């Protein structure tokens, strides 16, 4: 069975990519992902805040209380070298490239076009095959217009594109007034791929402590509906690669996404839940299904149920919503 696909210009052996998650925090689990059959790994995200603040924070705590008392001029040894998070990231990426055969994609997460973007270049130098730019932005300022929000995405993308030659994918959220327009703008601005979608962190409330508590829940297969819809809509409309993420748990999820037009599907929750070996199961099921249904290749299947390919394009639009409601009755 020919499971090959092309994503961001990278030739991949199958359409399953491990998305940014704690599994890429060490070489060992990245290796296990490769062994299980992953076609590529997106490394965990390097955050703008981490780049900007980790050094400042370390400096603050190492120095707090220093030079205040004759007996304790400081409280920590002064190492010659620090290996801060961003540097560790680059080092790990470098090691991953040396020991893995599959493409490794670096992930940068931020919202402004500041100095942190230099790390895109460092990722390139460390051997990253591509960069996934995760623009995780929750615009809470009522004075901010949708145009300004979109411009911010474009500016960050421009800044990264200017500093690297490797392909850049943009991972974005579904919350735009006109997502198709944003996708087209990103396409024009040079994005090599779109990753749909970011799962926004939504905190919970602790009613005993009356505190907002961070709580990340793993996705289920239901979550694929939103990216599935939009990949089907954007397939063929934008020139960029498309990656479907959120809710990819089973071979069916992969098949659906590919049929909608995704070049790759990205897995996170399922891998965290079942471990890297889960990829092997999904690939086996995918193979089996394709054999049973007489598909020859992933490329053949890709986009076969996109909006442009289905008999009823309105099925993705308002009319379909009406239909769904009617059925519900």
């Amino acid at each position, binding site marked *: 069975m020919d499971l090959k696909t092309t994503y961001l210009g990278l030739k991949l052996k199958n359409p399953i990519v491990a998305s940014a998650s704690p599994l890429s925090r060490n070489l060992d689990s990245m290796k296990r992902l490769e062994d299980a059959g992953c076609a590529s790994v997106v490394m965990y995200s390097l955050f703008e805040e981490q780049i900007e603040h980790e*050094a400042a924070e370390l400096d603050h705590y190492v120095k*707090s209380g220093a*030079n*205040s008392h004759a007996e304790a001029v400081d409280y920590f040894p002064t190492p010659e070298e620090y290996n801060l*998070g961003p540097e560790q990231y680059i080092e790990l990426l470098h090691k991953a490239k040396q020991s893995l055969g599959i493409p490794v994609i670096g992930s940068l997460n931020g919202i402004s076009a500041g100095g*942190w973007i230099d790390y895109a270049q460092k990722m390139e130098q460390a051997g990253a095959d591509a960069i996934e730019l995760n623009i995780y932005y929750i615009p809470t300022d009522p004075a901010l217009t949708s145009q300004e929000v979109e411009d911010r995405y474009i500016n960050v993308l421009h800044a990264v594109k200017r500093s690297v030659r490797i392909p850049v994918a943009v991972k974005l959220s579904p919350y735009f007034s006109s997502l198709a327009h944003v996708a087209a703008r990103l396409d024009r601005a040079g994005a090599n791929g779109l990753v749909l979608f970011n799962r926004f962190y939504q905190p919970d409330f602790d009613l005993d402590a009356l505190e907002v508590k961070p709580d990340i829940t793993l996705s289920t297969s239901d979550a694929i509906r939103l990216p599935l819809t939009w990949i089907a809509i954007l397939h063929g409309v934008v020139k960029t690669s498309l990656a479907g993420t959120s809710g990819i748990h089973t071979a069916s999820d992969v098949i659906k996404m590919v049929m909608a037009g995704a070049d790759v599907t990205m897995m996170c929750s399922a891998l965290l839940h079942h471990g890297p070996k889960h990829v092997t199961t999904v690939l086996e099921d995918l193979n089996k299904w394709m054999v049973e249904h007489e598909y020859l290749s992933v490329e053949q299947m890709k986009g076969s149920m996109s909006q442009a390919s289905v008999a009823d394009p309105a099925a993705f639009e308002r009319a379909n919503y009406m239909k769904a409601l009617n059925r519900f009755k």
Partner: protein
Amino acid sequence: MSDQVLPKTKRKMVTIDGNEAAAYSAHKTNEVIAIYPITPSSTMGEWADEWSAQGKKNIWGTIPLVVEMQSEGGAAGAVHGALQTGALSTTFTASQGLLLMIPNRFKIAGELTPTVFHVSARTVATHALSIFGDHSDVMAVRSTGWGMLASNSVQEIHDFALIAQAATLEARVPIVHFFDGFRSSAEVMKMEQLSDEDIRQMIDDELVHQHRRRALSPDHPVLRGSAQNPDVFFQARETANSYYDAFPAIMQKAMDKFAAVVGRQYKLYQYFGAPDAERVMIVMGSGAETAHETVEYLNAHGEKVGLLKVRLFRPFAVEQFIDALPTTVKQIAVLDRTKEPGAIGEPLYCDVITALSESMTSGKSPLKSAPRVIGGRFGLSSKEFTPTMAKAVFDELKKAQPKNHFTIGINDDVSHTSLEFDPAFGIEPDDVVRALFFGLGADGTVGANKNSIKIIGEDTQNFAQGYFFYDSKKSGSNTISHLRFGPRPIHSCYLVNQANFIACHQWFFLEKFDVLEASVRGGTFLLNSIYGPEEVWDKLPRHIQKGIIEKQLKFYVIDGYKVASSTGMGARVNTIMQTCFFAISGVLPKDQAIEAIKSSIKKTYGRKGESIVQKNYAAVDATLANLFQVKVPEKVTSTIEMPPVVSPRAPEFVQKTTARIIAGKGDELPVSRMPNDGTFPTGTAQWEKRNIALEIPVWEMDICIQCNKCALVCPHAAIRVKIFDAAELKSAPATFKSMDYKGVEYKGKKYSLQVAPEDCTGCSLCVEVCPAKSKSQVKVKAINMKPQPPIREQERANYDFFLNLPELDRRTVKVDTVKGSQFLQPLFEYSGACSGCGETPYVKLVSQLFGDRTVIANATGCSSIYGGNLPTTPWTKNLDGRGPAWSNSLFEDNAEFGLGMRLTIDKLTEMAKEMVEKMASEIGNDLATSLLLADQMDEAGIHDQRERVKMLKEKLTQMKSVDAKNLMNIADNLVKRSVWIMGGDGWAYDIGYGGLDHVLASGRNVNILVLDTEVYSNTGGQMSKATFRSAIAKFAAAGKPTQKKDLALMGVMYGNVYVAKIAMGASDAQTVRAIIEAEAYDGPSLIIAYSHCIAHGIDMARGMTNQKLAVDTGYFPLFRFNPTLAAEGKNPFKLDSKAPKQPLTDFTSLETRFNMLEKIYPDRAKDLSKLAVEDIRSRWAMLEQLAGGDGEKDKTPTA
């Protein structure tokens, strides 16, 4: 001075302090280094440990093995063993540490073993501890048979550390190489660093081989360290004579070789000054530098005086000494930086007299006549020794009857030993920039100044010197940086007292000190001010305006805070003020200075990331545009006066003595103002209103649930609660807040929660633990931080009113609850501990529960410093005049010290009871019986017994018998007394463990409170055996490889010791219960109290949260072991915390001490963290077993 030969070669010039200079030479020439922290020598060990952790090698290409010991005694023992088996070995120490090494020092010398110990000489504790410098420690070891070599400056320390190593290898006499603590050990100075090649040339490998050949080895076994009898010991002792005889020549040979290799020529006794001088001063240490400067000045101004620097004090080489003196000498003044009460004179004086006498009587003296010699003391505990004092000594020598056994530098109005000196006399040349910087510990001033010294020292031809003064507080401490820059090497070993540049980095100093006092006429004054150049003048206090006008100062202002905040630097104004200094002072051309600052920023922060570098660059760039010269008006217009240092209501001693010390004028106090035996009144911290909090908590009554948790956790007793009758409110200030008390026990009464606005440090621990939140806006709690200045006056009045409200009758209080305990008056208040300190809440709680009947033995460390460092003490007393009686003996003996107190109390109580029994008929049988059988298990029982003792004393007053007088004297012991032995983990786990163990085994009723910060906090965070595996600490620069010692379980194993592990932030109720149970237990009690600490590198405002996480992750499980329960047939072991339910990283990721390791040695971090997790698992399993399976299973996620 060592600039008689200026550097000829292109050796590296570095600006470092004396300790680093010594450690550098020592690390290069040794193989095994045993260390232990003690101020001011700790950083020598820290450097050695860091260099070895970084893989730096000695001259033989191997990394020296550095090991921390449990005490200086241990370090000396380890070095002794290392030497005996053939290693080159050393250690670093000072003061009491050196004294603990005495037994080994006799051994090492007796066995003719080559080694050099480097000592930053420090005052030995007598009537008081002092961390500062003098020679009382080294003089206490002068009989141990070691060579004693004194260095006078940072360069000499570096050079002599090597020269001594070379000499000891040849001479086989061990050497104590000493230099003045702080003045030389902490002075930062530009100096020439010896190259590896220099060091190689100085050390003769054949001598090293000989040392190895003498070593103990089973391949050529010998016995060394025998026991000898009267028949031969004496003779054997005399065998060493030839080695001592040969020593001076060997030492001089090493000095000469050094001169040939490096270019600096030193002599055992080095004379400077007029060749035909009649008046000569003899001195050792940094004072010799000042004396040298003064001699040159005086001779240049027509006098003929001289100075003899004694470098080799032991063996004292009479011949070389006499030869070094000018033959014309007629009067000699010998200065000793030590005091030997009862001796004919101090040691150097006595040696000089003896040397002269021997030389004259032998007829070998080249001197024309026998000089008259006087001796004097100077510089005890780093007391300043300045050119005017040196001049006063020379002037004294002119007198027909000069004062012998004089003192210089103080005003001795009691025994009249002191010489007078002219405070206005100064000799510093105009081409030396002399700058003073007033800053706060937290604002980075000192760090920036150290940086400026490096810039000037290393980037220019100029010479640079820095010395830093800190006050004794750990929170809101004031710092004064003394900097000198000039074209020649700087030898002014005293504070800058004629400054041509003064910078004040904090506005509030203007109202606290006369910051311009040391300014010269025409100098420059730079002020960090929120007021611009147009408005600042009218805001200045009167004395500052006057100073600026009278001294014709050039006056500049900058709003450093504005620049800092606009460039992302937060509140750190250091880089900005540093830039201003360079811009105004003209030490360097402006552009070159800016470039140098930036390159230094890159050097300092580059390894921590580019963003931090960029922020600092931005701050530098924005500074000049915001720096303005102020047009100084001609007249003083201000009506703002300096407020009184203490309230006029303060007692006389505080007014006359304490207040002077607070004001920074302690140097001016005469001898008569000081207590003669080190005894001071308690209750003095209340008079030192420091006003260091920018924000203080403000009470929202409507939300408050009256839990009193805020008062419990306050490290400074600055938030308090009271219950009182509504009638008391009649005279309350208008803004005083109170509400109905919510509990049933004091129904109908009022409740108030009040903040001490001027004593609060703004740590916000109280807000962190407040559980009550507004129903409509959860961010609002029952207490919230608000800016202090606008409410200072109002809250001061409220707090005064609050303090005067009556205290609750202790008999009515449920003392064993968190809430109840806080209605008891704290007898430990407003300490200078770190803002948010994790130790003091426990100390304060003990003071509330038992303070009115407690005697405290306090080990040296943080708690003895915030508890007993002048000017004030937080220990106080209640309205009856009762309160904790406190004392500090040493670091190592605290458990024994406390046991001694217990033994006395037990004995005196027993004697009192015997007398009561004996005198029963005279004092009344009923009273006698009830005195003897009193149940004192609760507050009511204690109250009743006090009443009985009062009655007894009234009766005894009427009697005239000897028995009555004797009983009167000890009757107070009939009331139950509580002995508390307090200290940190450095004491309990390490240096004092032997004693602590013995005291636990004694079965006596003492209460041991271990404030466990898991490091030696007071000396800067060195590893102790309480340090957790994988934590980074000083002396564990690569993370601690071994697990934390379980002192609590060791105590449990005794079976008859009450043991508790407590962490207030995790369970305040368990904390209160454990402390009460411990005190109630009639036997030894051991409480290990987890104390978050600034040395952990944490957000101190969240200290209690970290404590909770420490417990929840199983890092610090809580339990109580109560032997009383065993007697009742129950399991005495009770686990008070639940099975670990969160991964360890939830705790460790919040603390720099843990997460730093990952940033330096990621692989090692991974390995050690894995072991740390295993430690927690295995320990929990053990605790569960002890609890008899009552404990929960470990639920930590395994991922």
